[in-house]
């Protein structure tokens, strides 16, 4: 059986004064707020979000499409000369459903698809799908 301890009896107002002292001390502490767009907290080294596609390396094997658990990846036809990709199919990614499981990066036989540390991919349009061309560009160029 657990014994419940009675709280210590104190003089009236002592607890109030203690609370005021603790609250007053916080004035001299630094605020913990990070004002996001201007200040950023340092990212962990292994943080990854944005998927990047190297069009020259992609062989169109569709492994990434098959391994994607959320069906975020679909293969698209892109007219582009690449001797290693005869079918001319490349993956596009829907970031609205991507959970960053990194299966596609792991399965890719040529390391064409991989994840980068960029995470600011917010869009004003409703479509979160990145076409193969957009996947191969950096985020600034995509926004343009």
């Amino acid at each position, binding site marked *: 059986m657990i014994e419940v301890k009675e709280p210590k009896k104190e003089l009236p107002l002592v607890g109030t004064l203690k*609370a005021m002292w603790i*609250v*007053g001390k*916080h004035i001299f*502490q630094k*605020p913990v707020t990070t004002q996001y767009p201007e200040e950023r907290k340092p990212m962990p080294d292994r943080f990854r979000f944005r998927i990047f596609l190297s069009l020259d390396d992609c062989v169109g094997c569709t492994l990434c499409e098959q391994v994607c658990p959320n069906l975020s990846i679909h293969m698209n036809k892109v007219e582009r000369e690449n001797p290693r990709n005869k079918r001319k199919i490349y993956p596009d990614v829907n970031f609205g459903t991507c959970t960053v499981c990194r299966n596609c990066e792991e399965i890719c036989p040529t390391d064409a698809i991989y994840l980068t540390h960029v995470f600011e991919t917010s869009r004003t349009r409703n479509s979160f799908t990145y076409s193969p061309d957009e996947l191969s560009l950096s985020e600034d160029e995509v926004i343009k």
Partner: protein
Amino acid sequence: MDVLTRLAHFFAPLTHYVAYILAYLFESIFLVIFVTIVLVFMIYLFRKYMARVQLRIGPNRVGKFGLLQLMADGLKLAGKESILPKGRDDLPFRIAPLIVFIGLVMSFAILPYGDFYWIGSLTITHSNVSVILLFAAIAIMPIGEILAGVSSRNKYAILGALRGVAKDVSFEVPMMISVIALVMMASARTSEPLNLSDLVSSQIIPFGIPEVIGLLVFFISMIARASYSPFDMGESDSELVSGHSTEYSGMRFGMFYMGLFGSIFLSSMMVSLLYLGGYNGPFSSDAGFVYLLIKTVVLVLIAFTVWLSVPRIRIDRFVNMGWKYLLPISIINLIIAGIITLGVGL
């Protein structure tokens, strides 16, 4: 030379009566501007202070250091629709916020402010009984709150108003008794102890030092008068939606909000005038207003610390506290004041 005579001299080319009427008018306008500046400063200070205590930054986007945040909020409130509930009692519902605000401005008009360099005395009301006038004026504000609660035909509002009445009844008697002790102490030195200016100038050592108990009782009463956190049963935020001001919106709600912050400043100013020497300071007597402001702001910060650290007390416990503890303590304080007045002659 005070503000009124200066203004009257300025308007002297007009006839005597017109000059004085204009002088009174402009002095009232200056007072309202002063109250508005105080309110803006108080709300800004509170938001910044609360943010720093909670390890946040506070308003910092609108204007430099967020100084214009309150302007933005005021514009937002003024632009909002003021919703009137269907079952309201129309006239009391409309005038209740005005009563709160007018009570606040009247109380500010009665306080003595001391001297300020070349302007001279800033005191507006010169009355022989200004202590009584002051406490009559600060008793106006709860009337507005009670009217608001009763007239909006809302269960929460009525409960808030009832709690407000219970609170007001239980702390006013100890408050007045502790003020009577002050008047008694002042009567040893001046022939007009009910005149606030005389009462303040007669404090060679501040009354708060011989009357620590009275200071405590009065400070607690002033917290209850301004009705913030330990004693905010009238509002009971999150328990009775927001008490008497539940049904109010837009600028009408803004007036209750301003009344709250204004009465915190007012109560701090009253404590500093009555107990901490007011505008008496160590060096130049010209800077009386500055001393008063410094004392007031320190008290305001203490008040905010109380607000942010102490949880709300239950209404029955507050009524118990008022009648069973504060009242006997204030009577003991009165006896001590009598002994000091007769025996020591401070």
